[in-house]
Structure formats: structure tokens, C-alpha cells
């Protein structure tokens, strides 16, 4: 099954790294879309469908928390699994994002394999 992914992060460098990890992870990647903040991501999602979203938290205009809240208010968009990729490793933030509906959480810095593993878990790609 080919996947469409949306990466939301205000750092072009981090988006590039995440994109590279997904590309070399062996996923059947159909499309990799990018946005630099939550509002840009919302606009993009009005026109394009994706199968999974990876989002940072600290971003200008609309941060990751506001973005996930906005997503989950929509019946259709709210069904897209969201993996948070953030520097915030505090327990309260992780609990907060999961309670808002995020399906996964990866803290920066991370090994590429950790991101791959979290995506596999969220997308339901099982191990043999």
C-alpha cells in the first residue's frame, strides 16, 4: 500500500531529514507533502489527502497543539493518524498531545530508526 505523508515543521532542515528517513525506510511512499506551520498544513489538507501526518509542536502562526486540535474537530481529517516529532520530552507535553488525539510521539534528537519504528507502529505495518 502506497502512503501519502505530510511533514509539518518550521525548519526546512528538519523536514529534509524526516523526508529522507521516510524515503530510505523502505515505505511505499506515494507522496511527501510539507508545511512550515499548522495553518499552512490545514490549507494543504483542504486540497490533498494524506495517510499520516508528522508534526512539530513549536511553530509560528499555528503551533502543533493548535493544529492537532483543529484536525480532530473535523470528522474526516481527524481520522488521519498524527505523529508528533518534537524537542519537548516532558511528560506533561507528551500526555497532552496524546490526549488531544496524537497517535505517536518521537522526541528530538532521534535515531532515524526510532522514527521509522513509530511510523510502522502507527501505520500498522506489522513485523513478521
Amino acid at each position, binding site marked *: 500500500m502506497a502512503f501519502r505523508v505530510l511533514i509539518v515543521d518550521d525548519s526546512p*532542515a528538519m523536514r*529534509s531529514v524526516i523526508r529522507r528517513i521516510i524515503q530510505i525506510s523502505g515505505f511505499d511512499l506515494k507522496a511527501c507533502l510539507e508545511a512550515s506551520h499548522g495553518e499552512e498544513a490545514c490549507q494543504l489538507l483542504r486540497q490533498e489527502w494524506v495517510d499520516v501526518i508528522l508534526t512539530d509542536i513549536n511553530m509560528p502562526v499555528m503551533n502543533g497543539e493548535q493544529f492537532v486540535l483543529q484536525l480532530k474537530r473535523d470528522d474526516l481529517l481527524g481520522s488521519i493518524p498524527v505523529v508528533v516529532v518534537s*524537542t*519537548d520530552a516532558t511528560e506533561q507535553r507528551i500526555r497532552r498531545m496524546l490526549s488531544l488525539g496524537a497517535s505517536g510521539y518521537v522526541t*528530538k*534528537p532521534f535515531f532515524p530508526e526510532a522514527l521509522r519504528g513509530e511510523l510502522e507502529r502507527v501505520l500498522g505495518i506489522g513485523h513478521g
Partner: protein
Amino acid sequence: MGEELQSEILATAAQEVLETMFFAELTEGSEWPDSPGEPQLCARARFRGSPSGTLCLRIPARTARTIAADFLGAENEEGLSDAQVGDVVCELANMICGSVLSRLENETGFDIFRPELVSGGRSGSAGQDGSPAVSRILELANGRVEVSLRLDQVE
């Protein structure tokens, strides 16, 4: 929180980020060599919380280019634009800042504002309100990184 503990947290956070995503071999540095005219990049990340403060990072330009290539997975560091290198340095500051803040005892959480490159000079200088900054220098294979943390004084 005492300066000694802040300093340890700063070094631990910087080491974790540089090893995990930049594959950097690190040793403790003692001082920034006097190299007038050597171009360097400085990034500053403001954060808001309890306490608020600033994290600054200073790195020689040639070292920044090398670690940017390592971070991005680029074989050729010469092929990177200055903008790409600058963005990587900002993201390095962002990650170190987040790693530091995640280690500080805090009940209300933090927000980190997007780091920005600032014009040259010593990143570890005292903050605008005169409060001292805690600094650590880490030696890399082809250069060094200085990270500084200044917590705003609680009013």
C-alpha cells in the same frame, strides 16, 4: 537551580543532540581560541516558561558547514547553501534548547520560539538584564561549539 547543575544539563543536552543526529565525536573544551576574523555563526533561541530565558550557540562557519552536511546526509558539504547551513545551526540550537528544558524541573511547560541567527560576537555574553550565562564548549573533530544558557531572573 545552581549554575553547576545548569552547566551539567547544558553539556549533557548538547552532547546528546550532537551525537544522535550529527554523529559528532565530542570532547570537553576549555576555551574559545582567539581567531579574529574567523567567520562564525551564532544562533539564539528564546524560550518562555518558568523560568524563561535564552539559549545561544556559537560555531565556526567551517565547522557549521561540516556538521550541516552530516545532519542532512549530504556527501558534499560544498554543495550546501549558506541558508541551509544557517537553518541547520538554528535547528541544532532548537534541539539543544528543548533537550535542556526537558531536563529542568518545571510544572507548567515551555514554549521555544524559532531560533534565529544573530550577528557575530560572543554568544555567551551576559543577557540584557545583566544576568550571567552558563556556558560550555564542546570540541568536535574539526572545530568546536559553544552553548550558553541564561535564565531570566524571576521577578
